């Protein structure tokens, strides 16, 4: 485990030296600011629902940017060889990289706490939904990062990794939301769409912490991390 933490540390600090992280942060905070402005109006209830609901959309764009290089770059530059010939396991590398990115993602969210403070200054917000909203966004972030990591392990090209991640995130997040609104959708399709990320996430944004949703995010995250380990191990039989 200490090796995973070593790798997480390196990954996190490397982000701070890459322009990608700052571009992503800039985009995220800019959009979050505009979203907050919709909530933060005189006469409106003191909530952060809009910002939470739309944040997922931002993540569909931003997470692929943050994760595309995680493993793809190691393949491309050959550093994977130095890494794997040190006494580390594939799982150390995958968990380490995941934690490093997740930490950066948490850092990305920290400035949005300003909005909580602002709400508190001007009104008496209900902290329950705000707390569950943050919990939800952290869970969604974890899943998205695991997917990004997985895609990054599949290819040497960061572009391919980013496009693939965006495609998967689109299919599990935006597509279900989109077709979910169609009246002509068959029952099966609607049930399926309901199982996807967006509906589960909006529960959190509304302030509902459902154990099923909680388990869903943790389990899917674990599945993608596991798959990533398997892809990394596959170099041995390729």
């Amino acid at each position, binding site marked *: 485990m200490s090796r995973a933490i*070593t790798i997480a540390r390196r990954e996190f600090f490397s982000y701070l030296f890459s322009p990608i992280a700052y571009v992503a942060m800039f985009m995220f905070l800019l959009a979050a600011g505009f979203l907050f402005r919709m909530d933060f109006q005189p006469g409106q209830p003191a909530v952060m629902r809009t910002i939470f609901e739309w944040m997922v959309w931002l993540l569909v764009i931003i997470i692929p940017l943050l994760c595309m290089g995680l493993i793809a770059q190691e393949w491309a*530059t050959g*550093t994977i060889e*130095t890494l794997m*010939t040190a006494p580390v396991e594939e799982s150390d590398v995958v968990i380490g990289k995941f934690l490093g990115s997740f930490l950066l993602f948490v850092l990305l969210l920290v400035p949005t706490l300003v909005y909580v403070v602002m709400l508190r200054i001007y009104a008496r917000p209900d902290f329950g939904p705000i707390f569950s909203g943050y919990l939800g966004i952290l869970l969604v972030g974890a899943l998205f990062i695991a997917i990004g990591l997985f895609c990054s392990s599949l290819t040497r090209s960061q572009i391919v990794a980013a496009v693939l991640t965006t495609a998967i995130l689109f299919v599990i997040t935006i597509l279900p939301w989109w077709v979910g609104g169609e009246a002509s959708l068959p029952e099966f399709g609607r049930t399926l769409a309901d199982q996807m990320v967006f509906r589960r996430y909006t529960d959190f944004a509304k302030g509902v912490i459902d154990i099923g949703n909680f388990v869903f995010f943790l389990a899917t995250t674990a599945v993608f991390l596991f798959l990533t380990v398997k892809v990394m191990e596959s170099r041995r*039989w390729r």
Partner: protein
Amino acid sequence: MIAVSELTKVYGQTLAVDRVSFEVARGSIVGFLGPNGAGKSTTLKMLTCYLPPTSGGASVNGFDIFKQSEQVRENLGYLPENTPLYPEMKVEEYLDFRGRLRKMDRATRRSRIDYVCDRCWLAPVRRRMISHLSKGFRQRVGLADALLHDPPVLILDEPTVGLDPTQIRESRKLIRELGGKHTVILSTHILPEVEAVCDRAIVIAGGRIVAQGTPEELRTSRRMTARVLVECRGPKQDVENALARVSGVGKVEMLNGDSTYVTAALRPKEGYDIREEVARTVIQNGWPLREIRLESATLEEFFVQVTANQAMAQTETSPT
């Protein structure tokens, strides 16, 4: 120290390494010599547990590369081809990261980083970003990383590629000094490197070991005696006949000369030094002598020979 038996690697349809067996004694420096694509890197990757062999096995410092991969990796330092490094890190940071990965405690890390930076002449760039370093310094960072945990075995894949002549000389000197304390395997396609650095050479071509031994043994094994080159002014045919009669001269070969000067390459018989006799003959015939020179057999010649043989053998045995 390192024992390799029947190591084989197949990539899809390509046989990259074909039943390679060899042993390396503790403290020796072994050169892995071969043309590009001969299977050098693949063999080294299998020894470092990066790639598993298709069949066969190997042990490093007594640990099996299959069953005790972690111990093998703890016991070796590896410099991969082209020295991959993280460009956004500083030299010290990178070495510290590598030390942590190897679970070295803080005090050990600090003293070892000081030691390897000193050993690999990295002192002036310790706080520089790796992306700002020249190829030579990067190579040394890779070497410093390989040495960081003081491993008994060092595996260096083309450690001097891309360096300038001064750096090459320095690197070779360093590697030379590392022998004795560390067991070193280095791969190269540069022959003088093997002659300059290694105790033993293993020549690999087409995935197979085609020869091994000390550089001296390899040179003599193919009866590649030295030749004497003579350049003088005289009629070609007369020169050839006269030189062929000198005692001790085995074979005379006339090389291309210009219109007035001719060059002859003479192969002396075993145990003869023919230079004085040859010079006398030329002078006695009244041919102005421009040059006489002993050309010692090089490993290069040997290398070209064995690898060419190998290529020929392959085309003969291939089904089409």
